[in-house]
């Protein structure tokens, strides 16, 4: 109230109506003000104007929809739908967030489009959506467990650079059939793993690595072990029983499948333990030629080159190793073993800045544990 004249003022109206819907029910106003309004035409008019201003604001959205209804094609300034989706999801990728938001609030095409996208991207579920979700097969723990196994399987296959067939894992059956499929799938996975363990000597090689770790490079699947010897001096170490077992297993398996790339790669790795670097390069290259897109095989071949480089003090071998590791990371940027090995090769090449970046990147993806500690030691040494 404007106490001098006993009238309402605009600010007071704002205070009074702030918590009320617009137009606000006047009966919710304090009694003294209701009394004044019933007696004062000027204040009733003021209140009416204030309420009209609220209606005007609400109507602005209507004009947006109405104008949108005229066929309005995208202008050159209109951002791509994908950018609007990123904006609505809270991801800033374009570097032009302010400009795009400004555009959205004034563009009769992008405004409604953004509203629709924003509704789609909401994290909150309506009661109706909750109900639909509860009725879906994938809301059931058994179906989720089956899917988790399928994803692990897909991950393993993708790691070997086999494309995942589109919709290959769709389970289009009823719940009963899905449960049956789950059991079959689990059995298949267990069988595959079991058979892999017995046909694949990688486990023995990993054990040999853990026992004597003759070089600083890493293979996929090996546990952490402290470095036992100096660079490239693998031949000095006594042959571990697990290495003997691995060599025997590889030999037997290769006699049955001489072209198996996994076995050829394993043979190359076993040869590294005995400092047979030329043979290791030949076998690893042979494995890679049979599966040229394998980031794991690229990394293994790179180790062979780098270790021969150590032995023969050949920069060209390091360069070759660096190139192979770069390719491995291009194929699979998440291959942190290749990244670890690349940092080591960069150090050998004297590429200190590249090595520093590699170690930092490695530590960002693997910040804890023994491998991380080793990486951190390298990084500290570079920084010193």
């Amino acid at each position: 109230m404007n106490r001098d004249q006993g009238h309402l003022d605009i600010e007071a109206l704002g205070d009074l109506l702030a918590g009320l819907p617009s137009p606000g029910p006047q009966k919710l106003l304090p009694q003294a003000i209701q009394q004044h309004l019933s007696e004062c035409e000027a204040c009733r008019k003021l209140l009416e104007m204030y309420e009209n201003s609220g209606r005007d604001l609400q109507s602005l959205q209507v004009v947006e929809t109405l104008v949108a209804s005229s066929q309005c094609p995208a202008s050159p300034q209109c951002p791509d739908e994908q950018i609007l989706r990123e904006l609505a999801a809270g991801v800033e990728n374009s570097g032009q967030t302010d400009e795009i938001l400004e555009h959205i609030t004034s563009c009769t095409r992008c405004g409604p489009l953004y509203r629709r996208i924003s509704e789609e991207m909401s994290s909150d579920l309506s009661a109706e959506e909750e109900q639909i979700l509860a009725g879906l097969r994938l809301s059931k723990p058994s179906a989720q467990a089956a899917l988790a196994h399928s994803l692990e399987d897909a991950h393993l296959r993708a790691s070997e650079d086999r494309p995942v067939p589109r919709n290959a894992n769709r389970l289009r059956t009823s719940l009963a059939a899905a449960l049956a499929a789950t059991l079959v799938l689990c059995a298949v996975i267990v069988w595959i793993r079991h058979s892999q363990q017995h046909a694949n000597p990688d486990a023995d090689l990993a054990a040999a690595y853990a026992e004597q770790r003759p070089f600083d490079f890493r293979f996929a699947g090996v546990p952490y072990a402290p470095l036992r010897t100096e660079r490239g001096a693998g031949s000095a170490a006594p042959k571990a029983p697990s290495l003997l077992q691995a060599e025997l297993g590889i030999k037997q398996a290769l006699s049955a499948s001489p072209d198996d790339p996994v076995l050829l790669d394993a043979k190359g790795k076993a040869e590294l333990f005995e400092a047979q670097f030329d043979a290791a390069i030949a076998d690893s290259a042979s494995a890679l030629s049979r599966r040229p897109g394998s980031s794991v095989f690229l990394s293994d071949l790179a180790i062979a080159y780098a270790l021969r480089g150590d032995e023969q003090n050949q920069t060209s071998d390091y360069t070759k190793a660096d190139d192979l590791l770069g390719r491995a990371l291009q194929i699979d940027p998440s291959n942190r073993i290749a990244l670890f090995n690349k940092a080591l090769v960069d150090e050998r090449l004297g590429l200190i800045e590249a090595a520093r970046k590699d170690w930092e990147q490695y530590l960002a993806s693997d910040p804890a544990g023994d491998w991380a500690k080793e990486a951190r030691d390298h990084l500290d040494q570079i920084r010193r």
Partner: protein
Amino acid sequence: MDYAELSPVDLTLACLRDGQHEAWAEFIRRFNPLIAAIVIRIARKWGETSPQVLDDLIQETYLKLCAERASLLRRFDPAYPKSIYGYIKIFTANVVHDHFRSLHTKKRGAQVTTNLSPALENVVESRSSSSSARSIELSILFDQIDRFLRSAEISPTAERDRRIFWLHYRIGLTSAAIAATAGVGLNTKGVESTILRLTRRVRSHLTAAALVEKRALNHRSGEGKRAADSY
């Protein structure tokens, strides 16, 4: 490893990098409501409500997440951990839209494509008879309010607040949707209070402007009356 104890980012990275089924199981348990909500919503806008199709699309999203993990890992910046939800939302929306666009393209013929979903096309088709006079009137009102907001607010956040105001009144976004928008930098409560504050200022301004106009009208009509009386 107890995957249930990992943060959403660490869990996602564990799934995408190592792919253990225990990690995926936890990921599905945590993210399924979010992924399913987006699938349900977009599928319904394309007119699809079959639970079987929805299940298939949800499953396809997970499989593609796994298959395209290298690209996701490249794009994700661990410095912004909350953005993991954003990436998963975008990824899911793209899977579902791509699925239906592909279906529609096949139905319509490969040469006919559109960037708009049917939801927006329907709006375009059903509301084509607009009142141009009203549109002009409201366009003037928009300009008047926008000018006021640009001149009345001088704080460092004035531009952002003005955009929030228009995202609410022009675009019709809820406070939660505005808060989720990149670059806004406020939570839902912050957005609500910004809208409330600017709404009061704008309504006061509009009321004052209406009062001035009314007084001017009264003044003009009074002068006119006096002029008529003098004759």
